[in-house]
């Protein structure tokens, strides 16, 4: 795909479709939006396939000097690639999820979602710091409208809280960016990633970026906008919020905070680990007592994101890879869980857990999908959640045994609230007649959940596909961080690797016990 500006095309497709949607009637807008997101999904897959693993760090770079003071520069590394693929993968499901449930102002709704997709891709693809900021902040406007127009009863409060909270977090980052541009004389992100800022300044810069990303992530105690926004947003809005918008915080840490301010990052490891530990335990306990399904999943998001932050600040390859896989996995799983909630909400119009029960009897197919995603959220081996949690915790263990211990209890609590949720919704007796009368999945819902389920299993069984493009970038980041990496308390020592295969038998016994087999093998060989 040499010379083909694929990233710009991926930005242009939703833009054109969004403008079209404003002029079309409801059905036209739905099909246009679905078509555009599918085209973008195809482009995203093309991007993944043509991404050269082990090639140059920044690929598909584009540059146009349209502006003064900053430039239109796009380009991706493996980390950005995976997050872009995640975004374009979730979008068609979002459009499908809104197919019937959104009946008023459909054109504007689809336009808002398509603009959102444009901005998400822009955030991950921007190679210029101000361009990144523009995409990062601009996402507030469509999300504000999505929550405010199509949201639940308390939508106005939630939309304001979402907007102002995130805006306050971000503006200080802008000042920090301006300072960095002034100091380094460039807005180019790859250059800035190699620039060594004076350690004293790094502290302040790190805090300014932290203010923005911690809110976006969200980290305890600035997470309170999230449950409100999630609960009030329409289903697809929650999917995008949980699936992609939260990842912007993690992406910010991995793209800005860690490589640009390694010393300051090392200095604040205690803060990140402390907040993450509190977050995991506190939000898991809060999730345990929720009566509202969306709120429960929202709090579980905070807990999962805390493992991401802890993994990122483990300063080693496992931690970083684990955090990235956690972001991808959580994007899929929590997105899918919100879709599951949406499917039953559309029929019964309540998120109250007690209003359901025994759904596995009348909705067996639904119950299977819901179970799969519940297990993936808990981190059952074979699902993406296991890979994510195992890698992250293995990385964190090198830094702090205590943190690992506390974060692991979070996983146990996670199993607690997710299984409890599942039991109340899907098992037990059918105590509510209306819930018992609900229909099972239709074809549209199959198309929403099926691909995500496949991806969750794929990531759980063969994570290499997802890790391979990111490996070189994470290794580069690890090398950059090495000079500041804090000394861990685990003091792991690499053992001597065995020369023989792990299942090889000692020679002496081998001859006696398996001689016959070998003989048979040989005899059947060449003859």
């Amino acid at each position, binding site marked *: 795909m040499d010379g083909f500006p694929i990233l710009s095309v991926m930005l242009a497709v939703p833009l054109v479709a969004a403008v079209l949607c404003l002029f079309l009637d409801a059905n036209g807008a739905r099909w246009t939006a679905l078509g555009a997101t599918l085209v973008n999904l195809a482009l995203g897959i093309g991007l993944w396939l043509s991404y050269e693993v082990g090639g140059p760090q920044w690929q598909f770079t584009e540059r146009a000097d349209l*502006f003064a003071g900053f430039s239109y520069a796009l380009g991706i590394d493996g980390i950005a690639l995976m997050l872009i693929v995640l975004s374009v993968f979730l979008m068609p499901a979002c459009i499908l999820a809104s197919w019937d449930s959104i009946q008023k102002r459909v054109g504007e709704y689809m336009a808002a979602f398509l603009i959102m997709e444009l901005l998400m891709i822009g955030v991950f693809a921007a190679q210029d710091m101000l361009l990144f900021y523009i995409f990062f902040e601009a996402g507030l406007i469509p999300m504000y409208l999505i929550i405010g127009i199509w949201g639940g009863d308390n939508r*106005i409060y939630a939309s304001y809280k979402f907007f102002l909270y995130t805006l306050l977090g971000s503006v200080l980052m802008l000042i920090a960016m*301006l300072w960095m*541009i*002034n100091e380094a004389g460039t807005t180019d992100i790859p250059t800035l990633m190699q620039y060594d800022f004076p350690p004293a300044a790094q502290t302040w810069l790190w805090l300014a970026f932290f203010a923005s990303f911690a809110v976006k992530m969200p980290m305890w105690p600035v997470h309170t906008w999230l449950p409100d926004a999630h609960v009030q947003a329409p289903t697809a809005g929650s999917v995008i919020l949980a699936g992609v918008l939260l990842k912007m915080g993690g992406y910010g840490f991995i793209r800005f905070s860690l490589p640009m301010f390694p010393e300051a990052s090392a200095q604040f490891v205690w803060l990140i680990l402390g907040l993450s530990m509190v977050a995991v335990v506190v939000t898991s306990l809060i999730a345990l007592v929720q009566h509202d399904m969306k709120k429960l999943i929202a709090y579980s998001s905070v807990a999962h994101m805390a493992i991401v932050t802890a993994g990122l600040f483990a300063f080693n390859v496992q931690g970083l890879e684990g955090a990235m896989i956690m972001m991808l996995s959580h994007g899929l799983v929590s997105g899918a869980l919100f879709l599951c909630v949406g499917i039953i909400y559309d029929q019964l119009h309540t998120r109250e857990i007690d209003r359901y029960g025994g759904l596995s009897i009348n909705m067996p197919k639904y119950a299977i999908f819901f179970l799969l995603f519940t297990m993936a959220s808990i981190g059952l081996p074979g699902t993406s959640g296991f890979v994510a949690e195992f890698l992250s915790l293995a990385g964190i263990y090198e830094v702090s045994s205590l943190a690992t211990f506390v974060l692991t209890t979070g996983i146990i609590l996670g199993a607690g609230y997710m299984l409890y949720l599942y039991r109340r919704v899907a098992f037990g007796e059918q105590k509510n007649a209306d819930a018992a009368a609900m229909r099972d999945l239709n074809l549209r819902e199959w198309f929403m959940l099926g691909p995500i389920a496949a991806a969750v299993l794929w990531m759980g069984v063969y994570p290499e596909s997802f890790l391979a493009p990111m490996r070189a970038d994470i290794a580069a980041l690890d090398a950059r961080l090495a000079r500041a990496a804090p000394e861990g308390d685990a003091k792991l020592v690499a053992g001597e690797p065995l020369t023989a295969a792990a299942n090889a038998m000692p020679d002496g016994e081998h001859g006696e016990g398996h001689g016959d087999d070998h003989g048979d093998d040989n005899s059947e060989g060449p003859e």
Partner: protein
Amino acid sequence: MDIVNSLALSSPEILLTISGLILLMVCAFVGDKAARIVTILAVAALFGATAITADFLTNPAFELGGDAWAGIYRMDAFGSFSKILIYLAAIGCLIVTPKFFDATGEYRPEYPVLMLFGAVGMGLMVSAVDLMTLYMGLELTSLASYVLASFTRSDDRSAEAGLKYFVLGALASGILLYGMSLVYGFTGSTNYIGIRVALQDGLSTGALFGIVFVLAGMAFKIAAVPFHMWTPDVYEGAPTPVTAFFATAPKVAAIVIMMRIALDPFGGQSDAWQQIVIFAALASIVVGALGAISQDNIKRLLAYSSINNVGFILIGLAAATEAGAAAMLVYLTIYVAMSLGSFVVVMMMRDADGKQVEEISKLGGLSRSQPWLALCMAMMMLSLAGIPPLFGFWGKLVVFQAAVQADMVLLAALGIAASVIGAFYYLKIVKIMYFDEPAGVVAPSHDTARWAVLAVTALIVSPLGYLLIVPLGALASRAAAALFFII
């Protein structure tokens, strides 16, 4: 020879003055039925002046500008840039005006003539390099403004606005004149160069008082806190097109003369006035934002919004650098587009009987009855709040960048944090238009002129505006360089 040169350099003002006088004759002899043709001719005259000024700005032959009338008037890129902005704002206001008075039939040909004389005064102000020329220009503009504010004679609020504006404006002029006399007394000159030279060896207490009084008078004119009290009342009472004019052209002129006077004659003593400007900037941002929250009249809200924006513009002045001056000019340009666009929307807020609607709650559900109007207004509001990807963000960005470059990180951080307060009430308008149930009050408008002005301003404010960054930035830097050239 000298007089020919002087005439050439001040030709925009001369063109406008002659046009104004001729049109005044037309008013006197033809009467009210000439209103339409006088408006068209006034717009044409302003376009002519814009064209001449644009030539001054871009023609390499005028690279260094030039002094006219024995050093009391200076044609340079800085003045030319500001004048173009002022003329364009005046044109925008004039185009949308006649339709506004249709309902009451109060439109008279004096209106465009007053606008023309106001434009002459503003041109004179921004080109003044002598305190006397400055004062002449300022008063010419102010007198035209007082009359315009009370233009709808039958409306008590309009008369009150005119009176308030006159009394407080006169007070401000008095303060300014007192400051000027102190400056003259302690430096022995009314000429900018003379003052600058006299202040080079140090600042006497008397001259310091002079500077403070001059800046206080200016702060009145630009409506910066703590001299902002007149703004909401005048903006509310004056007819909406006049309010739109006040919020754009005279505001630009006042800010530009403040820049010139602070950076040129007082430029060597920036330490003396920087703290005043920093205080005024932060106070304006905070008061403008907090004051707007409880407003339910859209014009009062926009008045507070203009106070808020002046605060951001002053951050560029606080930096006291060339980059800061260029940033202010960029911000002013975007600000003019945003204000003009918002006020055009306000003008289009009329009920089925053609009566002006000013309560914000009446905008409820506008996005469903008039999606395009609501979209334009939402863009203006979010742009005023400085949310990317709208162009208002760029204005804030360059101003804060200038402050950061001048090592005023704390000022920039405080200013931008306070901008979040402002975002709240801008969001409130978007919320009312998009989330609330339709109030069904605002009737559709079909006036081409208004839609044209709104479309142009909306295009500038939209993300497409970012394509203007290169030319706008280049012209603003050139203008700022001209301002600093004499130093």
